[in-house]
């Protein structure tokens, strides 16, 4: 594993702080709106005019807005397109949406890197999209005013037309678009002060195509002359392909060619089934050497050993936790969470055509810039000869930030010089994931005589989640951008997020991490560190409340004097769940609170446990995600997120001598409909900056459920999945 220093860039550290705000907004704005900046700006066909990098207007008046953010079900492409459409006084249904290829204009301004993730699409782009829509509107107005020889004052927009101050004459957008595109982009456009009443639920643009089978995901791409490829890599991580029977493979029906890669084989055939079957029947011999990692013993051995011996990096030190612990009532517990697979419903796939000094890629990707850079490295082509066309994504959850599957596809496409679509089997997808790392925590708290926590000491053993996704532009020269690179530890904070900025008033805090190096690939997974860390923190706060003999909600309230937003969601969830009323017979409730992804969420779970069967009867969620841009999309993200949180209580990936043991949905079983409780979502009225909802929902759910199990049975669950506690979901 490489460790590199950050490139010496003037404000690199500021850029990389996870909570970094949009500083110098005007500067960012001007950088983001240079029309056609970069080599791969959206199709500047003659019949369309580009007003900023974000709005294209056809001569017929049609309006296309450009989406930087990938659509994987989180609804971001609707929310951001609507922001632009609003500024053009157009209903969302009147604009087309196109996904941008890579260009610097489409980078996330916080990280200066083009990607979709970290639940920051809204916070990074919403205001920018309003500004871009307003800039396009002012350009149209200026062009129309010039045509008429009048001042811009009193020129208005409506129904896709521009109206003269005389109230009679109008021009279509298309009639002035070419003139407008020649104007300088306003650097401080005035936003509408009368935007359509915010808070209405939008009809998502992508839904009709998702109910009739016409939505195009990566796996659906079809090109003339396209071949299909299947891949098989070592079932044991770290093993290499030693031998294979290439000749007999090549004689299989439909097989066009067989390509060796470092740890496996790609078969290219006329159809995918032919390629897959040939590979399944192939006699592949793997090297005896490979990873020795076994998860069953890892917690007791390597994790426990590092937990006691370190070394540790101190992420937070406030007051003195150790001296506050002296003589106080002290509580200590260890918690552990397993490896998890992303298991997107659409397995990894990509389509590419490399020919005539040009590379075209069709990919369901969250990581456009990484894919572009990797394509340049693999093909040796200059960036301007590479274009990435994005499809819809059948789930992402962080997995599609990576470009390993793009690289594989390019290897095949370069070999056959024809378009190739490469599809992973589900087994490949689960065997060669970049897993949510297993973690071991030791958490200790000290209580004063009233039972309030005066010290919290938190030690985490966790592999990095940023090895493959830390923005490569921030790093030095690396030959292969798909390889693991460990960022400096002070920027590698995902392992401790949610605990270094927890909301409780606790005077003395210490948060340390041992960054464990494993030969198991690990990366970000929906909720990143927030999910596992909240499970530990909120279960432990519940332990403190029990030790103090206090009600779990009242106890939390007493330590939230300085965090209004945390208090709001906690109070709302208590009211909506009927916390102060008795639970129904046979049921008990548990609560958890989280501050994550620019917002707050609290959950109350109502459960019953009978014969080791855990039944979650009801989940009540209260959310403050800042100003609510779309209650429909936000609620679906929170509800679906809660399902993700419940799933993560019953799934895990285990390893035996480097082999992932769960290869398909028969062994790695996400929650199903019949196990899903009623999930109520309530929003706090908030004027705070919009935060993300994509990853917020799952965060407090496992702790709320486990705290309810304690209330019901007295059993503390300190390790997931719940099967370790002898439980399963009813």
């Amino acid at each position: 594993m490489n460790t590199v220093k950050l490139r010496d860039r003037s404000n690199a550290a500021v850029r990389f702080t996870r909570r970094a705000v949009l500083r110098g907004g005007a500067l960012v704005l001007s950088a983001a709106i240079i029309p056609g900046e970069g080599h791969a700006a959206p199709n500047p066909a003659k019949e369309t005019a580009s007003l900023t990098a974000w709005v294209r207007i056809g001569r017929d008046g049609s309006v296309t807005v450009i989406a930087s953010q990938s659509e994987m079900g989180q609804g971001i492409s609707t929310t951001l397109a609507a922001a632009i459409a609003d500024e053009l006084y157009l209903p969302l249904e009147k604009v087309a949406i196109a996904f941008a290829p890579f260009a610097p204009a489409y980078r996330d301004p916080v990280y200066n890197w083009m990607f979709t993730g970290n639940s920051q699409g809204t916070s990074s782009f919403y205001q920018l999209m309003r500004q871009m829509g307003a800039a396009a509107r002012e350009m149209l107005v200026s062009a129309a005013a010039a045509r008429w020889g009048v001042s811009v004052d009193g020129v208005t927009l409506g129904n896709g037309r521009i109206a003269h101050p005389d109230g009679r004459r109008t021009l279509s957008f298309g009639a002035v678009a070419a003139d407008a595109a020649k104007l300088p982009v306003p650097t401080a456009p005035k936003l509408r002060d009368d935007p359509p009443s915010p808070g209405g639920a939008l009809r998502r643009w992508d839904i009709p195509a998702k109910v009739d089978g016409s939505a195009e995901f990566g796996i659906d791409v079809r090109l003339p002359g396209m071949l299909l490829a299947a891949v098989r890599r070592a079932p044991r991580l770290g093993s290499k392909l030693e031998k294979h029977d290439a000749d007999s493979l090549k004689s299989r029906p439909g097989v066009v060619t067989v390509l060796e890669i470092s740890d496996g084989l790609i078969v290219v055939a006329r159809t995918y089934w032919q390629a897959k079957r040939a590979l399944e029947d192939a006699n592949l011999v793997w090297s005896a050497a490979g990873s020795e990692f076994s998860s069953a013993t890892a917690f007791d051995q390597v994790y426990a050993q590092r937990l006691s011996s370190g070394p540790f990096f101190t992420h937070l030190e406030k007051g003195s936790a150790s001296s506050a612990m002296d003589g106080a009532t002290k509580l200590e517990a260890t918690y552990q969470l397993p490896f998890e697979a992303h298991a997107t419903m659409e397995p990894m796939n990509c389509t590419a055509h490399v020919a005539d000094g040009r590379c075209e890629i069709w990919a369901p990707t969250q990581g456009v810039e990484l894919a572009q850079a990797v394509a340049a490295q693999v093909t040796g082509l200059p960036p301007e000869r590479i274009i990435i066309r994005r499809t819809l994504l059948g789930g992402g959850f962080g997995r599609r930030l990576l470009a390993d599957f793009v690289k594989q596809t390019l290897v095949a496409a370069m070999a056959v010089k024809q378009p190739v679509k490469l599809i992973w089997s589900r087994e490949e997808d689960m065997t060669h994931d970049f897993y949510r790392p297993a973690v071991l925590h030791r958490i200790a708290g000290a209580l004063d005589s009233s039972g309030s926590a005066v010290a919290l000491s938190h030690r985490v053993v966790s592999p990095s989640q940023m090895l493959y996704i830390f923005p490569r532009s921030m790093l030095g020269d690396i030959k292969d951008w798909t390889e693991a690179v460990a960022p400096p530890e002070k920027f590698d904070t995902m392992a401790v997020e949610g605990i270094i900025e927890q909301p409780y008033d606790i005077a003395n805090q210490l948060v340390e991490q041992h960054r464990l190096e494993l030969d198991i690939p690990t990366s970000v997974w929906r909720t990143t560190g927030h999910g596992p860390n909240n499970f530990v923190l909120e279960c432990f706060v519940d332990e403190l409340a029990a030790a103090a003999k206090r009600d779990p909600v009242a106890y939390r309230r007493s330590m939230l004097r300085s965090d209004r937003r945390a208090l709001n969601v906690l109070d709302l969830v208590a009211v909506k769940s009927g916390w102060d009323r008795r639970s129904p017979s046979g049921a008990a409730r548990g609560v958890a609170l989280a501050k994550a992804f620019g917002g707050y969420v609290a959950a109350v779970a109502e459960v019953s446990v009978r014969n080791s069967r855990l039944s979650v009867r009801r989940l009540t969620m209260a959310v403050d995600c800042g100003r609510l841009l779309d209650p429909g999309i936000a609620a679906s993200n929170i509800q679906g997120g809660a399902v993700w949180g419940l799933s993560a209580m019953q799934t895990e990936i285990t390893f035996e001598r480097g082999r992932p043991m769960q290869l398909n949905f028969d062994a790695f079983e996400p929650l199903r409909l019949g196990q899903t409780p009623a999930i109520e979502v309530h929003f706090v009225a908030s004027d705070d900056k919009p935060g993300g909802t994509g990853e917020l929902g799952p965060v407090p759910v496992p702790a709320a459920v486990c705290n309810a199990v304690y209330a019901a049975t007295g059993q503390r669950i300190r390790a997931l999945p719940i099967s370790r506690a002898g439980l399963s979901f009813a």
Partner: protein
Amino acid sequence: MIKLNVNGRAATVDADPDTPLLWVLREHLGLTGTKYGCGIAACGACTVHVDGGAVRSCSFPVGEAKDRKITTIEGLSHNRSHPVQKAWIAEQVPQCGYCQSGMIMAVAALLAEKPRPTDADIDAAITNICRCGTYQRIRKAIHVAAGFSQ
């Protein structure tokens, strides 16, 4: 050569009879609305109708589909007019959408058999996996679709 009846049309495909129906639909007939999710009939993303019943096409050899009536998501209706599709739009069910063709086909088969399913009927019949977790809206939309059908 295998003769098939897909979405009311006759089709002849040159495929090995043990090829899963899923891949024949997607690759030979270009009907890509039916999705590959697991290949072992565990997730339901590939659900289609064979003679009106829900079948997980990833594990259904095309040879067995010969002379039987196959319906895919593309053939469920014209213009998204099937009650399940209408309910799915009304309730804004899909998120990423990848599992939804299979969900809709599974639900359409359920409603054909039980026009007014109870929650327990739904729990038992709809075992498809949705990783986005749209289950709550799916349940509601099934009841809405049942209302449309009356």
